[in-house]
Structures are given as structure tokens and as C-alpha cells.
């Protein structure tokens, strides 16, 4: 792995946060860097890097709300300035582009496919925008409405092994729809009542290695698991802040070792589950310091297993080695 550099924005952030990089710390890192190892965590609970500060500048965010990591490790972040910014795995700013329209609202979902297409859930424009990794527009699909091929407020996109796309939406017509790889509507996969409760703001989707679809049913504070025909396989979770409980899970990601990572907006933490719904561990408490989160909207897993979590109200991304 390359060296973890401080970019100017990061340094600016450090100044704001009041924790200046200390020469002593660098001294302590010296033997390890010489030995060619990875840097040790910056905090006792495993933060190995953090980037971003508040603002409109490159590498800065205003309420970042969606994150995705591409197959090459590039990190994509969407924020309330309606920009999509791309960073290197180390958090160095690479490029950015703006959504074509932004007056009505800003996107809340980003997904990167294995062929490096970037799907942006342009929530308040009821559509999905498709870009290449440099922000060149490839396609868009969906329009406002509640019928076939229409959306209200889109939240996330997932892709299965055959290239079919799955899109979640909310706003009164909460459902998950399926689309062909060339963006044609296939069917409504999930809608209405699921396991006793109506789907309420499905804010994230992910497809695991076993090709099952995980849905973060955030206002019901639970996770749902479907097969790709829309049959419910499992559901678990209830409102609360204990282990196994959730409060507004806004993002879900299947980890390479078969676990599930859930980002809880209202509990300001990450929680790992086994596929059978056992809570394995949690990470983070509410706060401003490194290693703490404030209303995180999303988390993504990098190719090397690092977790990138958007610390929304702290306007930064923290990188964790769990």
C-alpha cells in the first residue's frame, strides 16, 4: 500500500479539529515505515485515515451523503453541493463533476459497477444517472411517477452477476424495481407489505456473493434479504441502540467474508451482522473526534477490506481497518 499523505484540505481539517499532526507521532511511525509495513491506526479503534473538510473546495464536502468504492479502489462521494468527487484509495482528490440539475434536490445514492460505471440516484429528479469514472454521462433512466419505469425518490442502485440493476425508492411508493443491463424496466421486485410492515424508505441495497439482495428498510429499522426473484429469505432488526438493534440503517454492504456492514444514521455507528442476523460487533459513537461519527449516511468496503464511512455532519470520510 502506498503512503498515506496529508493533502492541504486534510491539513486544514486537522487544524480545525485542533489535532495538529505531531512530529512525535511521525517519529513513532518511522520504524514501521522503514520496515515497509502499513501505518498503524491513528486512533485506538482502528481509524487509519480521514479526509475531507467542510466546504465547496475540491476534497471538501457539504453534508456528504453517499459513498461507493470502485473495483480499482477509487472512492466516490456525493454531497449536498450535488457534486460527485472521486478520490484515490488514500483519500487524494482526483476529479469531480456536478449533477446536471440541482435546484430541486441533491443525490443520496452512488453505486459503482464492476465495469466502473458510476450510477447516481438523482433522488429529487426521480431518475438514475449513469457516468463513466471521469464523470462523462453515459445514460439516464427513470422519470417521475408511480408506474412502471417511473420513480418517486430514488435512493440506491445494486447490480447482480448478470448485470441486472435493482433500484430502491421512497416517498409514498416505497419499492424496489428491477432493470435490464441496458436500463429497461423489468418488474417491480418488492413493494408494499413485507413481513408485517410496509416497506418504509428502503435507503440502501447490496447484493452479496450468494446473489441475494439485502435491503436496508430504514424507517422500519430492519434488514431484509430477498432472492433475485423478490422472495423474502430473511428479515431481522428492530428499533433501539442495543446490539442487534438498529436506528435508521441508511446503508448496508456485504463484506468479502460474508458479513453485513450496516451504517446506522441515528445511532451514529457501524454494526456488523452475520447473515443469520446475529450482531457481531459495533464501531463508533456520536462525536466530533476521529473514531467517532455524527449521523453517518453511508459506508463502503474497499478492495483491501478497509471500510470507508461518510461522517456526514463532520463533513469527512473516515477509513477504518475493522
Amino acid at each position, binding site marked *: 500500500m502506498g503512503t498515506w499523505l496529508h493533502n*492541504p*484540505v486534510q491539513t*486544514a481539517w486537522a487544524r480545525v479539529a485542533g489535532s495538529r499532526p*505531531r*512530529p*512525535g*507521532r511521525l*517519529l*513513532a*511511525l518511522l*520504524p*514501521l515505515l522503514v520496515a515497509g509495513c502499513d501505518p*498503524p491506526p491513528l486512533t*485506538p479503534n482502528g481509524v487509519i485515515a480521514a479526509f475531507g473538510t467542510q*466546504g*465547496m*473546495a*475540491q476534497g*471538501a464536502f457539504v453534508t456528504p451523503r453517499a459513498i461507493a468504492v470502485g473495483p480499482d479502489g477509487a472512492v466516490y462521494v456525493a454531497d449536498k*453541493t450535488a*457534486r460527485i468527487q472521486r478520490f484515490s484509495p488514500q483519500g487524494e482528490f482526483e476529479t*469531480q463533476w*456536478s449533477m446536471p440539475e440541482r*435546484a*430541486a*434536490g441533491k443525490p443520496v445514492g452512488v453505486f459503482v459497477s464492476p465495469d466502473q460505471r458510476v450510477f447516481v440516484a438523482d433522488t*429529487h429528479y426521480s431518475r438514475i444517472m449513469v457516468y463513466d469514472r471521469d464523470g462523462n454521462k453515459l445514460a439516464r433512466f427513470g422519470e417521475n411517477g408511480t408506474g412502471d419505469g417511473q420513480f418517486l*425518490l430514488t435512493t440506491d442502485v445494486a447490480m447482480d452477476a448478470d448485470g441486472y440493476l435493482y433500484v430502491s425508492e*421512497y*416517498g*409514498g411508493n*416505497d419499492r424496489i424495481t428491477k432493470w435490464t443491463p441496458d436500463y429497461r424496466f423489468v418488474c417491480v421486485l418488492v413493494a408494499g407489505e413485507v413481513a408485517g410492515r*410496509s416497506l*418504509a*424508505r428502503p435507503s440502501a441495497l447490496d447484493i452479496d456473493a450468494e446473489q441475494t439482495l439485502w435491503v436496508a428498510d*430504514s*424507517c422500519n429499522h430492519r434488514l431484509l434479504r430477498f432472492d433475485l426473484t423478490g422472495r423474502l429469505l430473511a428479515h431481522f432488526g428492530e428499533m433501539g*441502540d442495543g446490539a442487534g438493534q438498529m*436506528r*435508521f440503517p*441508511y446503508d448496508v454492504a456485504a463484506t468479502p467474508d460474508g458479513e453485513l456492514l450496516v451504517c446506522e*444514521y*441515528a445511532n*451514529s455507528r457501524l454494526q456488523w451482522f452475520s447473515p443469520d442476523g446475529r450482531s457481531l460487533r459495533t464501531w463508533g459513537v*456520536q462525536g466530533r473526534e476521529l473514531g467517532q461519527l*455524527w*449521523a453517518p449516511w453511508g459506508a463502503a468496503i474497499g478492495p483491501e477490506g478497509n471500510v470507508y464511512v461518510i461522517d456526514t*455532519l463532520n463533513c469527512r470520510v473516515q477509513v477504518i481497518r475493522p
Partner: protein
Amino acid sequence: MSELLALQLPFAFEHPQWLWLCLLVPVLVWLSRRSLAGLDPVRRGLALLLRSLVIVILAICLAQIVYVRENDKLTVLFLMDRSDSVPDEKQILQESFIAEASKACPRHDRVGVIDFARHAYVQQPPYEGGYYLEVGRLPRMPNPDRTDIASALRMAMAIFPADAAKRIVLITDGNDNMGDLLQEAATARAGGAVIDVVPLWYEHTNEIYFDRMVAPNLVEEGEQVPIRMVITSRRPAVGRVDLYHNGQQVLLPQEFGRVQLDAGDNVFLVRVPIRSGGPQRFEARFVPEGSRAADAIAENNSATTFSFVSGKRRALVLSMDPTYDQVFVDALRSEKVDIDLLHLTGDDATLDLLQMLNYSTVILSNVPAHMFTDEQLKMLASYVKDLGGGLVMLGGDESFGAGGWMGTPVEEVMPVTFEIKHKKVIPRGALVIIMHSCEIPRGNTYGKEVAKKSLDTISSRDYFGIIAYTWSPMGVNWAVPLGPSADKTKIKRLIDVMQIGDMPDFDSAMIEAVRQLVKTDAAQKHMIIISDGDPSPPSPATLKSMVDAKITCSTVGIGYGQHVVEPTLRNIAMATKGRFYACRNPRTLPQIFVKESQIVRRSLIDEQRFTPQVQYAFSEVLTGIRADDGVPALNGLVLTSPKPLALVPLVRMTKDGPDPVLAHWQYELGKSVAFTSGFWPRWGPEWTRWPSFAKLWAQIVRWSMRQESPANFEVYTKVEGNRGRVIVEALDKDAGYLNFLDLPGGVIKPDQSVEPLRFNQTGPGHYEASFDVDQTGQYIASVNVRHSGEDLGAIHTGASIPFSPEFRELSTNEAILRQVQETTGGRWLDDIGNPAAVDLFSHDLPPTVSRQPVWDWTLAWLLLPLFLVDVALRRLASWPAFSILFEAVLLIFLLYGVGTVHSGFWGVAGSILLAELVGWSIRYRSIGPMFASITHTVAVLGGAGQRSTTALGQLKTTRERVREERTGGGEPGSPGPEGPAPDRTARYEPGAAGPTPSTGDLHDALGGARAQPEYKEKRRPPAGLGADESKDETDDVTSRLLRAKRRARRDLDGESDEKRKD
């Protein structure tokens, strides 16, 4: 000397005279030769070195050493002019200029951007490396109607980093109309900044503007008012002049349909007949002929002015339903009161101060507060307080507290409070506001303002609570816990610190609100949701529980222009019998909230029949009313409480005390009346049939009316730049000057704020006062005239600023920009179109020097450790003990001084490792000999036997011989003080003058005291003996002992000789 010591190092001294202390070093060295003589040479040398260092560092600390950093970094701050005077195409050009020019920014230099008009805003704080904002995404400038370059310069000076050279790049047209630019430029220069000027060139060659319109301030009814219009044109043009009088177009003579303008000022005069009283508003427009290119700026083609007519006093009745009020109006007319009825329809009353000034009193007949905007409410209060008008409020189901007037500025001027204090039992209301973050600009501030507004509107006995999404600890939180709103100040503090987060769903907030609302004993339970509607909608079960508990819920959609999910909000309101408001203009929010909060105030209406009783018969308004005829009964009133200074002629007596029915008082310059009943067909049919009805009301209305102006006063207003002047010429009836008048008054500005006028008499009967002109719109001045304590009436004047001075600027103001550039020694960068050519990042400015005191650091981290080591070196005789102390000091230094304590395990481990390394390298000096000594001892013990027996025998023999000698030649039995001394010293000195490392010094190793008595040094044997002793290493123990004995004897003899000499 300080330069000498500092050499080329980045240090300097604040008080270099203290460095003379260093001269103590030689003295110390000389003194220490004696005091440190007991140490071995290595230690002595080290100790001397350390002491000298301690003295030098002490001198450095006292001289207050500072770290001087010379920095050749540069910060460039761009100041961009975004006021109205800058043409649109130049506005865009500025940002691209900044973006392009910043590309040349070296990596470690900084770029910041400030934009300004009336106020200055930081768009990019000084960031290293360039301009990071995407071109074209700067937020809209809030108040572009003025230019204050001085405030932008102040802002720039405030955000410049201290450690870099300062360059300001001022991009502007130089048309500055607020603040003192040259003064601020001089201040910036003194602060070390250089201002490079990039002028924005433009010149409107085809420009026509309305320079001014003048009408006399006071006119008579029936008079033909002369109106003078001055239109300025840059070149000959043709156009049409339209004139409006009180909103109606005036039919002008034929020639005004096509007027010819010459280059320069063109003056036109028209006469307009005045047919009604009150203020007369005139507005004129010039419409140029031909294409738009004929006139560059369209905003400056109109002018307004107004005159006041001194006429009869009139009253205005504002009514929601004229069928209810007609009987009242007819009664007043029958008493010859001049009265106009204005029927309020729609959501807003269109009423401004100038209109109100037309009337001497305003009567609100059952009008709810939400019909008025915040500004209009302030106007109503100002009308009474500052302009001396009258205000009469009549009751009804939408008046007083029940009409949402509680907490408004109008309540302040009324003779009753709308809060009920004297009633024991009164049904309560409960209001819960659910707040979702408002994503419009300043949305959360609006949210807080309206929450406070609602709180003001309800009574202190009502329940009030706010739910907001606050992230902690439960997500949905009571920002203000539901409870009686007795302590409104405390609740407002809670509202101020409230965090309003992005709510994921409505359900959890609504469930919580219902849960708490059903616990209250409130008769009216109401909920207001303010949101953009994008949280997940509530479940049908929640809505049903609200209907069951009779909780109504109104929803306010906010965030139009971005997104509002209306269906969710509409559905909630519909299901719970509330109302939905699409709030497209956040300024109407307070009205919505007042209207909604009013719902819980229905309990203030009391519809029990009662007969009013006369409590204060001497009131002016009751004069001539025969109370013994009996005041007829009324069918209802709105509950209020009287204010302490108010007169309350009519009341309703209850067991809780009197409720005011009619109350009146004078408040500041005006008068106000409260009649809590009214609502005639429903509450007072018997009153309208009462013979005294018309007379009583005519007296009330006349009492409240304003005194009109004295006739012989001339008053006018002039506007010059940013200042307006009010001039009063005071004459009495005989045209004699009135001197020493008391003229309290104020100017009501376009934003309804009041600036007091302080008049100075500047000549006989001539008075002047001035006020700030910083807004566009009408300025109305009201002056009360008092002479020797007598109120002579009020006079009014005013001025109108029809358009911002920004639209008056026709070209770049080069002169002032040249001055700024020359004052600060900056450059004149004329070519904004070629940003690559300007070298903004040239390091030709003098480098900045920052001096940071470091004496405290020197004291803590150099002097103290050195001092400790110095003490240890002298006091701890053994090297191992010294090394341990040294190691400890070093470890503390590393852990805290360098800060490795913060990097966890590796930092601590590294520090310990380093300290141990140093410690052991000091100890190494002793370790070697220690090992040698141990091996030697082991060897000696191992070879015990023959050698030891022989040695023991020899020792014994020697001892015997010595004893013999001593008993023979000495003084047995009396060893004397010196007696044993030679023996002791002999024992301690094994025959060698220097240390004998080969045999090992266990004494050293164990840390015992080593210093030898000074007198021993003096009695060191002569050199010859020393040479003798060099052989000792090869001699055996016995002969060494013998020699020692002899030497001791010699010493003893010498000593007794000396004694004898004494």
C-alpha cells in the same frame, strides 16, 4: 552582543542587556576550581561545563529569547465587486479572472476570495495552492443595492494569515457608496497589505435616468401642486413621461406623450390638482422610445415623491366583514365623523404607513393578526408610538388574544394585555410543533423564528412543545418538552439552541407527540408540522390515533424552489382536519404560524351575556353619556387584562374580578382604545339600538385621533448622498420666529425601523436634524412640536429613494481607485481579460517576520534538565546512579517534550529504548571495571590456600611489629584526636595516588561518597615520593603497609611541628 550570540540562527532577544550575565561564566569557573576540587577530572570538567551552560541559558531566558521566522510565503486575497452597478458580463468576468490568475499560484502560497456589495462575504478562506471553487457557483449576493469596499478591506485584513506577505487584488468599478474606502486603504497599508487594483471598465453612453422629482411638502386641499421632474440623459433621446398620483395615472398635457431630451439635465413642470386630504404620493416614469439599447439601465427610469395635505381628520375602519360593521360605520357618520371603511379580503391586508398617515385613527374591527405581515404589525405600533396616530381595537371571535394578537408589537401599545392573569379557571390549549430541517437558505433560522412567534401568540397557561430530529440520544427529541409555557424566556432559550436535523420519517415524531398530547387536559390539541415533506409518511394507524384523540394537524410545506413532497403533507392535514400551507415565500411563515397557533386560543372567547358596569365615570370618552339610563347588555367578549396605567371606564364584573370592556390610554405620542366586545349583530344588537351608541363611539374615535400640524411650520427633507436632513422653519401666527422648541421625532425607514431625530436649532426658528439613508424606499419623518410644555401638534415630511444609487453610476470611478492603488503602493492591473499576463504571485513584497517567545520553552526543556543533571553530577558520586537519573530526565523529556506519549505503544517503547541506550552507555564506564573486579575477586577466592596463608602470616607479623613500635615510641592509652587518623587514611588509600581501575572500585560501584577531604589534597606527597610510588604496583602488600606507616608518622610529626609554631 545579541547579534553575536544569535549568529545566523533564527533567534533574537527582547532584552539583550541580560546577556551580560554570561560574563559570570569565567568567575564561576575560577570559583568552581576550589569547590569542585573533590571530584575526579572528568566529572569536574563536565560539572564546569554544565554550570556554565546553566548560567548562559539563564541569561538567555532573562533576555527573553524569541524565535524569529522570516517567511517568504504570500497570501493573495481577491476582492470581487458584486454590486448592482457592475454590469452582468463584468460579474462573470471577475470570477474567471480569479480562477485563471490563481492557476499561477505556487504550491505554498495561499489564495482567498471575498465578494462584496453592501456586506462582504468570504467565499474561499486563504487556501494553499489556488482557487478551488467551481466557476459560476458563487451564491447569490444578498444586498447588491450598495457598495461598501471598506468593509471588504476590513474583512480581508481580518482573515490574512499572520505568517505571509499580504496582497489584496481589488476588482471593482470603484463606485463606492458606503464606508470610507481611502481610510480603510490606509489602515490596510499600515497593516502591511498592498492593494493591486483591477478596474472594471464600463461607461453607459446611452443612459437616461430620473435624477429627481420635487413636490412641496405641505399642500392645501384644492391646490394645484407644482411637480418638478429632472431627467438626465447622456445624449439626445425621445420618450414618454407617465405620472401617477396615489396610484392613478394623471392625464398629462399632450406634449408629455413625446418629449425630447437633450444631453444633460432636462426639467419638466406639471401641476396636479389635489382633491383629497392626507399624504399624496406621486410617481413618474420615463419610457424611452426605440430599442433597449437606447437606455442601458432600466431600473433608474422612475422617481417618487410625496406631499402632505393638511385637511380634516379622518378615521379608517378595517373590517373582515362589512355586513357586521356597517351599523357601526353608519352610527359614526351620523355624528359627522369622517370615516372610510376598508374591507380586508384574501390573506393580506394591503396597508402601508403612508396610507395610514392619511388617517388620524385606525379602527380594527375583529381583524385577526395574521392579516398583517410582521412589518405591517410594526407599522401599526409605530403609527401610534412614533407618529401619534390613534388605534381602536374592537372585539370579536378573531380579535385580541383569540385573534393571535398576543405577543405582537400592537399588544404593546394597547391599554390591555391579551394574557389572562386574573382568572382562576380557563380552558387551556396545547400546541406541538414538529420541525424538520428546512433546506432553504437560513431555513433553520426561519424555523426558530416562527417557533418563537407561535410561543408569543399563545397564553402562558397553554401547553407548548417542539419536536425536532436532533440525532441524540433518541433521534426524535423534545427540543422543548411539552408543558405550560409560563416561562417564555426560558423556552426561547431552548429554541435558540435547538438543533434541527434531517428527519428520516414523520411517524416516530408524530407518535411521540400524540403520546404526550393525550396526557394533557387541554381542550384544543393542535400540531403543526413544518417540512419539505421528504421524510417517510406516517402510518395510517398514527393518523387514526390522532383523529381519535381529536388532535388536529396542519402542515407547512417549505423549500419551494428546491423540493417539496406535497402529497405527504397534504395527506396528513386532510386526515386530521388540519390545513396545508404551501409556503412559497418564507416571509409569510410568521403569519401562518400566528394563524395556526390561534386555534388553541379559542378559549379566550367568553359568550355569556352580561351587562357592562361603569367603573370610571370621569373618563373623557364617557362625557355626556348618562350611565343611569343603563348600559345595555352584551352577549360576549374576549378575555383580556388591563394594564396598570390604563383607564378602564367599562367592565364586566365576575367573581375573579373585573374584565375590561372599554379601556383607553395615551401611549408615547399616540392614543389607543380597546373595546373587548363588539361583533355587533351577534354580541351587541342591543347596543346598536341604544340612543347613546353613536355619541359614545364618536367621542371614543375623536379622542383617539391625532392632533394635526400647526399651520405656520415649513418642513422639508433633503437627501445628500448617504445622509438625509429634516429642516423645520417654525413661525407663530404673526410670522414671528418660534425659538427654543422641543421637537421630539423620528424617521420611519423602509424596513419600518425607527431612527430618532435630534434637532438642533441652527438659526432663529430654524431647526435641523439628520438621518442615515442606506435603504431604497420611503423615509417618513414625524416631528411633534412642543412649546413651553404645550403640545402644538405633529408635522410630517418624508423623502423617497426610488432606486439604489448603484443604478446612478454611469462609469467607472477611476480617480478613487488610483488613489487606493497609490496609497498602498500596489499595482494598476488594467487588463482583466488577460489574467495570464498579471503576475500576482511574484514574491516582491517584503517577507513577513514573526517573533515567537521561546524563553519559557528554553526554561522548561533546557534549563531545568541541565540543572538537574548538574546537581546529579556533583551529588551522585557513582556513575551508575548518575546514569539512572540522567536516563529518567531524558525519558521524561522524550515522553512529554517531544509528545510521543500521544502515539501509543510505539512512542513510549521508542522513548524508553532511546533513554536506556543513553543510560547504559554512561554506565558502561562502570560496568567494565565492575566485571573486572568481580572476576578478580572470584580468582582470588579460587586461589585461596597457600597464597592466602602466607599473606595472612605476613599481615599478622606486620601488625605485631607495628603494635610494638607504637607502644614503644608513642603515647599509649591516649590516641588523641589525630591519633587514629593516619590509620584510617592509610586504610582508605591503598597506596596509589590515582584511581586503580584494574582492581576495580567497588566503592564507586556501590554509590558511596567519594569526595576526599580537602586537607588531604594539600598534603599530597612531593613529586619524588610520587615517583617512588610508581613502583608500588609490583610490591607486595606488607611493604606497602610499611611505607604507609612511615609516611603517616612523618605527617604526624609535621603537624605537631606546625602546632608548636602556632
